[in-house]
């Protein structure tokens, strides 16, 4: 396999990294909003949050992407593959991240929440300034894990036509008939990206202070 082919794979992996990063960040914001809905006293919001998390964790991402990709034209929306891919991945990862965050929110010391109430914080202020930062810190390892899962899951957005690493590999295989070398190289690139993310994650965990007294 030539360097030219490998370079094409490397270039496509930038799209993989871009789509994954954007989706993880949007997913995180959605997950925090889902958690807020779950913690709020409004029952329909809580139901919605539970339904959302259960449905998107209970169905395959491939089916979700195929559904979204085919649903949009039916309801008269035309958007590029890149946006479809990001919406699909963000919604799916939001459900998983919300489930992880649930554990984090449960770990927030009640005393801190009570003192914020006493200090005159509104519930919204308490949520954003006390609960969210602590829950995020507590779920950082799970978040890094989820980032790695999403990097791998982003291979599925090849089905909505976005040229990322896996789709590029498929295209190159179709034109060169070298599936072994090309898919093995794609796998290697995924592996290296994941190792970098995992290592960076461990560094970040070590640097950030813990929560509560040790």
């Amino acid at each position: 396999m030539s360097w030219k082919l490998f370079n094409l794979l490397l270039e496509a992996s930038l799209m993989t990294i871009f789509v994954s990063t954007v989706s993880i960040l949007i997913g995180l914001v959605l997950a925090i909003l889902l958690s807020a809905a779950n913690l709020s006293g409004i029952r329909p919001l809580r139901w919605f949050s539970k339904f959302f998390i259960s449905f998107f964790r209970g169905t395959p991402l491939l089916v979700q992407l195929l559904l979204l990709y085919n649903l949009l034209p039916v309801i008269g929306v035309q958007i590029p593959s890149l946006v479809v891919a990001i919406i699909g991945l963000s919604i799916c990862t939001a459900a998983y991240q919300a489930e992880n965050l649930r554990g984090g929110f449960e770990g927030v010391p009640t005393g801190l929440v009570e003192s914020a109430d006493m200090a005159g914080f509104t519930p919204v202020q308490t949520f954003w300034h006390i609960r969210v930062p602590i829950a995020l810190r507590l779920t950082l390892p799970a978040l890094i894990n989820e980032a790695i899962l999403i990097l791998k899951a982003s291979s599925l957005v090849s089905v909505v036509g976005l040229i990322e690493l896996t789709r590029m590999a498929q295209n190159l295989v179709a034109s060169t008939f070298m599936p072994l070398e090309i898919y093995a190289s794609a796998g290697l690139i995924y592996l290296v990206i994941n190792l970098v993310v995992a290592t960076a994650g461990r560094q970040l965990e070590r640097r950030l202070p813990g929560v509560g007294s040790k």
Partner: protein
Amino acid sequence: MGFDFNVILSKQDALLSGIAMTIFVWVVGTLAGAVLGFVVATARRYGGTLVDKALTVPIEVIRGTPFLVQLFLLYFGGPYIGLSLDALPAGLLALSIYGAAYFAEIFRAGYQSVPPGHVEAAECLGFTRIQIIRNILLPEMALLVIPPSVNMAIILLKETALLSLITVPEMTMTASAIGSQEYAFVEAMVLIALVYWVLVELAGVLGRFAEKKLSRYRLAKA
């Protein structure tokens, strides 16, 4: 714009065979993955440092790459090294190997959770290694291993959808085909999403039931 589920439901024979195929590849892939993962974890524990280190590499490679890429590598790349498999055996093999890498880690954690004193006591009593695994290690780690195993089984159920991309006639592929023929792709996808959802919830309920049944064997904390 209206959705018509009737055209999809009228193809119930094809749908049901797709659902049956999904359940078949799921059960076989999960069981084979669990057995293989157990063998790998046992080899790592008793095979010496070299075997332990050597087995770490494939486990990390499989866990660090997307299942889709592994599936394509095996199915499309296999014939180039003399491994020509039909879609179904290729899918089952890929799913089992993928599952095995995760199950190996689950069983490794299980092995580590058993207090060394229990194994030493059994050795002193003259238990053979097989007896120790069967009568001490397996029962003691069972309770710890069940929740992550159920979780893994659920992940594997969702991964079976990818087998449609190498033309295994499981439910995603069947539904896509019917949906395209009948111009009701969205309805077809909604329908099978619901089936997956029910299967996942069912697996979770069964898992919690098994956990509860086995919890009476929980060891008292020393």
